[in-house]
């Protein structure tokens, strides 16, 4: 507060925000300073000029009529969006968990088409064929792509819902 100059103190004084010790000091200054008195006069003049604004009652009633309908639209809209988002999340979680379960099975042969290409993953725990160490990178890589694609799809759904 001590770093303020008089042109700033006059603002705080006018709006009653100057603490008491400084207020008394500023009032003493005001008695000797025509510049600050003139600024205070401008502040009071501005206040008088702006004091008479009132919202027309027809405007306010029109507004209340608008949010009478918009209100339920907005609430309905929000609830539908939340339900849709929750449904998408549950579906996504189900797909991911199902995929992970499949990949964790000891023996499986999966033939899947991703983006038009065919991938054959043949895994067996029988001795002399593939070892678990050899099969896991392929299986994990495949799962990662799948999850990425799924996440992209979820993002796209979320974006389209946001735009609603």
């Amino acid at each position, binding site marked *: 507060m001590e770093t303020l100059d008089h*042109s700033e103190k006059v603002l705080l004084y006018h709006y009653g925000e100057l603490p008491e010790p400084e207020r008394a000091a500023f009032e003493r200054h005001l008695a000797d300073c025509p510049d600050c008195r*003139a600024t205070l006069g401008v502040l009071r003049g501005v206040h008088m000029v702006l004091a008479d604004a009132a919202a027309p009652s027809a405007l306010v009633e029109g507004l209340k009529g608008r949010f009478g309908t918009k209100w339920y639209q907005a609430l309905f809209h929000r609830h539908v969006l939340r339900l849709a988002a929750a449904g998408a999340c549950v579906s996504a979680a189900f797909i991911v968990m199902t995929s992970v379960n499949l990949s964790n099975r000891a023996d499986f042969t999966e033939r899947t088409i991703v983006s038009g290409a065919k991938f054959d993953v043949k895994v067996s725990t029988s001795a002399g064929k593939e070892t678990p160490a050899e099969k896991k990178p392929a299986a994990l890589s495949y799962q990662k792509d799948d999850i990425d694609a799924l996440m992209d799809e979820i993002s796209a759904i979320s974006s389209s819902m946001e735009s609603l």
Partner: protein
Amino acid sequence: MTDAELVSLAKAGDRDAFGVLVDRYKDPVYGFILSLVRREDIAGDIFQEVFIKVLRNIDRYREEGKFKAWLFMAASNMAMDYYRKEGRLAAMEISLDYETQDDGGSESLHSKIPSGEATPEQYALSYENSDRVKAALKKLSPEQLEVILLKEFSGMTFKEIALTLGEPLGTVLARMSRGLKKLRAELEAENGNA
């Protein structure tokens, strides 16, 4: 009932609670917008859009922020957008009208501006011609005008305004101080030209 309590009820779907908030702030918000855009039809549109926007986003309101600050920030953003796009032109039109009135020989404000020995009240009374003060207000920068009008209409303290605008307190005070200096210079320049 406090603003926060009313907002909680409004979030739960109580339309009457939001109506109370509208009634509580309709005059200062409308006055703030009208003082910026200077056209009743535009002010009315913005006024309605501000409250509809606040209503739509009521779920985002958090108790730690003051509803009044949030409401005035919405009003300020929308009105300032219009002011920046259209207000300059309107200010020029007002200024031209004003000069025409002077040529008509009506009693001038200028002769009423008191000398250096006057009290603040005498200075204030010399500004009773509201059209001149309003025209002078339009010559301020949008940022200077925004601070002055926020202070006058919102009833927020300077600290609250600084928080609302995301500016340091000193910046807000300096901006309003410069605005008033310019306002005073405009009014006194007219005095000199009379």
